[in-house]
């Protein structure tokens, strides 16, 4: 079992980067043959970047169109980020002070995370305004609910041996894998994380780039027909 999971970790990791490389290649090639539209003059750089930063960091565009969903999505993404940062303590040796500083907030985030996802699903399924739910999105949400719930269970009731977990994580990074920690929940948690990495949507990389392009376009719109 341990060997299978260790092999799976490397396969998923390699597949992730191959996929990322192929997508980048496709985006690059696609830009060359893109639509023939002429862009208006480039709008002020500082304003464009500042507005894009607001769009990316605060999910500003979502807030404008759906505040109820924004609340859930923002809570989910911010708690997810804190949980990921909290997990860095397993992969870094020595652990930097800022990672220690994040442990409490990461722990609280870990408990909030599954509820934020349940809230998002509730908004999607029970709000009359929602007309569409992508099956792929629902699958991802369900997967993260499972991963985060197992994480909560491991913290509250079925604690794995954290020393073994750290040895295992560092072993993976140094290509000298240590034995998989014993128990059911940790291997299950890790296996589901691998599924998540395999399914992770590419919009986490591309959406910020498109948001930047959108801001450029919107700020440049008045110039299209009012240029002189």
């Amino acid at each position, binding site marked *: 079992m341990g060997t299978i999971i260790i092999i799976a970790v490397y396969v998923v990791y390699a597949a992730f980067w191959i996929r990322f490389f192929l997508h980048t290649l496709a985006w690059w090639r*696609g830009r060359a043959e893109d639509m023939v539209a002429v862009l208006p003059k480039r709008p002020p750089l500082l304003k464009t970047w500042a507005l894009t930063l607001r769009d990316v960091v605060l999910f500003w565009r979502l807030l404008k169109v759906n505040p109820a969903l924004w609340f859930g999505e923002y809570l989910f993404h911010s708690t997810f980020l804190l949980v990921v940062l909290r997990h860095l303590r397993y992969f870094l040796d020595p652990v930097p002070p800022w990672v220690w500083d994040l442990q409490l907030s990461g722990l609280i985030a870990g408990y909030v995370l599954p509820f934020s996802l349940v809230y998002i699903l509730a908004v999607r399924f029970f709000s009359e305004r929602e007309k569409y739910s992508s099956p*792929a999105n629902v699958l991802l949400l369900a997967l993260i609910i499972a991963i985060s719930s197992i994480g909560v269970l491991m913290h509250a009731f079925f604690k794995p041996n954290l020393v073994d977990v750290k040895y295992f994580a560092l072993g993976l990074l140094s290509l000298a894998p240590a034995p998989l920690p014993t128990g059911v929940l940790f291997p299950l948690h890790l296996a589901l994380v691998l599924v998540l990495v395999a399914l992770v949507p590419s919009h986490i990389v591309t959406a910020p780039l498109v948001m930047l392009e959108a801001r450029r376009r919107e700020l440049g719109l008045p110039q299209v027909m009012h240029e002189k």
Partner: protein
Amino acid sequence: MLELDACTQCGECLKHCPVQDVTGNPLVSPPEKIRMFREFIRKTDGLKAKLFGSTDVDRKLLDDFTKAVYECTTCGACGQNCPVGIFTQRLWPTLRKEMVKRGLGPIGVQANLPQVVKNSGNPYDKPAADRYRPWFPEHVAVAAKADIAYYAGCTGAYEAQPMVRGDALVLGAIGEPFTMLPPEEEVCCGFPLFITGQHDLLKDLVDRLVEGYRSRGVKTLVCSCPCCVNIMSRDWPALYGRELPFTIRHITQYVSLALREGRLKIAKELKESVIYHDPCYLSRGVGVIEEPREVLRSIPGVTVLEFERHGLNSRCCGSGGAARKVYHENAIKMGRQTIDEAVAKKADRLILSCPACYAKVNEAMQGHDRQIRITDIMELVSGLI
């Protein structure tokens, strides 16, 4: 394309999609179109397809996808409300171009467009001799050469003649000399071909038109059709290969400037409440939003009302994207939604500034239980000067 990967499939766009409003079918929706196109590309051009050959794509998937892409009016309201900011008013025509390349589009009568435009110079297959004659006012002079040129456009000239007649009357009243290409030289601007994904003839059309205006010394090209104006300002320079030798202006921009400078005066009063519909390719497309309102507000006695969704967020009247040629029923239903809201707002008149909107909304009113007077903005102004 980056945009295809950037869609989070959140579905916010569906709440603003006019096709959704009348069909209620989520399969014909922006995230599904993107999902199906991704699936199609994966099966035909993905790594596995490259290594082991492309796999057969499910026929139903292809049919659903083709329908979804061509049933869209390309109004771009989805992109306007996209939490990522995807420029869908451009994305859908680009998808159509890709589909034409792969033999999946266009559909129905759209497929005849290149041949029709090649033969007659316009997408309606009408003779060039009838392009101006039925509507152009006899007393309005057209100069052989001038700084200003007027492009009537095919839809205006053949399908919305009160509108282009109004344009010509107002241009005549402003008094600045303007020129026009002879009817056989004023060919299609390329938009119907662009929007259906059939790009082969575009460069030739653009070169002919640009050279025609350049040889007449034109500095400003005025046009009242939002679709023409859109392709002229956004795509013509790229197709022509360099900066255009003239500036493009929508007629409302030209007229609002003339009003501001006192070169045009609206003498008569009109005690009416009018409601203005923003054409998608004029507002979201090129950002001309204020000038039509300025023109309307300059009419003594007029009260300008607004639709719930206006300006950048305007709702499609159903005539966009060449979808009206194939999905006629959808277009009529969308047109009636526009009429219904205008009536509910207690407007005396529905003001349009797009020939496609003008033709389709007028058609939608035939046999409809709610009625309102539909007038093009220049048709209105020309009657009051």
